[in-house]
């Protein structure tokens, strides 16, 4: 269980956090969504006892992260944005080191390392120096290292940034397993898709402030749900395809967003299968067909009236 109220942290003139509230119920996942520099990592560092907030309080399982830091450290696992393992040590040596530091004893550390290496499919690479690992293997070792002490609160700071889509799905499966076994997870991400796939609730932060907090469904309702994109193989069929899409989306007009590519807002996953069936019935073949969640940029544009990258703009009032 994670509770934080009014977290403030300034670094010189940079106001990294300006009063952030976060709450994660036991056994659930909170996705903290925001662009680079929004304050996500600062929040995670405060919650994991690495930074002391200028103001505000935070508790992990009821323990204050400043006053009870030592006890908080016994219950948390931290996986940073950059793999924080020792590259000159082998995978096994890394895990055994953390086992020793967590007082598992020499034998216990060895057993726990073997267990995690097996679980994360790293047994074959266990004797190799971590610097020889691929990006995906490093992330797995990094995550394994944060699980050595069987923490019940886990912080994942952008766990899939830089991973290819297949590796990203693998990591998502791991996170789901952790939660299924009762772990409480706070996950930061730049992808709405990732937060949607994993989180029970999403907090959107920007410039050190919470600008929205909702369930994934609620957030998607606000930011406009999903977009169905279709490219008919024969450009001459564009207008017929557009008419079908319009029916699928119960009346919304389908626009040609790029040359030969139609897009229409839809409200649920069912729209995908329905449109496939209708295109088949109408004899229209398509070369591309996909369902998209809004990108982070679009989310921010909807919530704040400006793009996420647009840092110099004066603040526009929140419309959410």
């Amino acid at each position, binding site marked *: 269980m994670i509770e934080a109220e009014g977290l403030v942290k300034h670094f010189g003139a940079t106001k990294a956090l300006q009063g952030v509230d976060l709450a994660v119920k036991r056994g659930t996942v909170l996705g903290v969504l925001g662009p680079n520099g929004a304050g996500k990592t600062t929040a995670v560092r405060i919650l994991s*006892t690495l930074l002391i907030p200028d103001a505000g309080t935070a508790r992990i399982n009821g323990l204050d992260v400043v006053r009870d830091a030592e006890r908080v*450290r016994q219950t948390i696992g931290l996986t940073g944005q950059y793999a*924080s393992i020792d*590259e000159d040590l082998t995978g096994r040596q890394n895990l055994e080191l953390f086992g020793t*530091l*967590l007082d598992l004893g020499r034998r216990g550390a060895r057993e726990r390392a073997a267990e995690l290496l097996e679980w994360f499919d790293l047994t074959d690479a266990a004797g190799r120096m971590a610097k020889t690992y691929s990006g995906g293997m490093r992330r797995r070792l990094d995550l394994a290292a944060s699980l050595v002490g069987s923490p019940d609160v886990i912080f994942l700071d952008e766990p899939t940034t830089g991973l290819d889509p297949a590796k990203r799905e693998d990591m998502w499966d791991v996170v789901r397993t*952790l939660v299924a*076994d009762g772990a409480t997870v706070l996950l930061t991400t730049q992808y709405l898709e990732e937060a949607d796939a994993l989180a029970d609730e999403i907090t959107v932060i920007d410039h050190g402030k919470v600008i929205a907090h909702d369930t994934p469904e609620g957030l998607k309702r606000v930011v406009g749900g999903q977009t169905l994109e279709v490219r008919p193989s024969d450009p001459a069929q564009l207008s017929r395809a557009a008419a079908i899409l319009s029916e699928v989306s119960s009346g919304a007009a389908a626009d040609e967003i790029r040359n030969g590519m139609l897009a229409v807002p839809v409200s649920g996953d069912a729209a995908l299968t329905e449109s496939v069936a209708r295109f088949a019935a109408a004899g229209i073949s398509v070369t591309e067909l996909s369902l998209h969640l809004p990108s982070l940029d679009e989310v921010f544009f909807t919530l704040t009236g400006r793009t996420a990258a647009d840092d110099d703009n004066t603040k526009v009032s929140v419309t959410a």
Partner: protein
Amino acid sequence: MTTLTAPPRTKSPVVSSVKPGQRPFRLVRHSLALMKRSLIKTWRTPEALIDVTLQPVLFLVIFVYIFGGAVAGSTHDYLQFLLPGILAQTIATGCIAIGVNLNTDIAKGIFDRFRALPIPRSAPLLGAVLGDVVRYVIVTISTLAIGYILGFRIESNPLMAVAGCLLAVLFALCLSWLPVFIAMKVRTPGAVQGVMFALIMPLSFASNVFVGAGTLPGWMQGFVKVNPITHLVDSMRGLFDGTPVGNHIWWTLAWCAGFVIVFMPLALRAYRKKV
């Protein structure tokens, strides 16, 4: 390959079959575990030992054969005089590496993980400092070995020679806290190197390493006489040659204690505060 007795896959990585126990002497055990990490790293990157292996060899050969005749009248006499000085100088410059390494390590994020673990906060620094002992032992052995080949001889007895070597290693261990402190205060490894050179160069040259203190101008002698390196070198000369050491050993030990008392708390405090 199929195995009939494949171990049952653990249900979940969160559920551990190993339970942590409460064990005593946490600071010692954790520091030793982290020292082992340093030793593995040293073992894996032997090229990082160049400063403590090649440098004393080069300095000895160059100084003995270029200045020996001019300074001491003979290269052999000068070698006998210079070797303890070169050992002290190499040990002092060899300390710089720990600052550079720690500064690099901290930027990489592994220290974040250490800091988020329920271990004493000073353990990672203590472990790193202790792990460097192996470097100082190596520098002592390599300097004495090349010295022996060139004609240097221990003229006291083995016990005093070992005492001289131990004093050198202890000096290095204590002086290490200065570069560790600098490493916590500056932002880049290059800056650690720069600051440390600016401190170590005057200490090692404005001393009795290369020439007797008596030959130096009077205003400089004042500095040379309190310089910790001078005391270390005089102690080693006495212990290696079997000549009287006066109270240089006590002065050296006092300096060692001073380095630890001043720079260890400063380093630990800076480490705790470091973002």
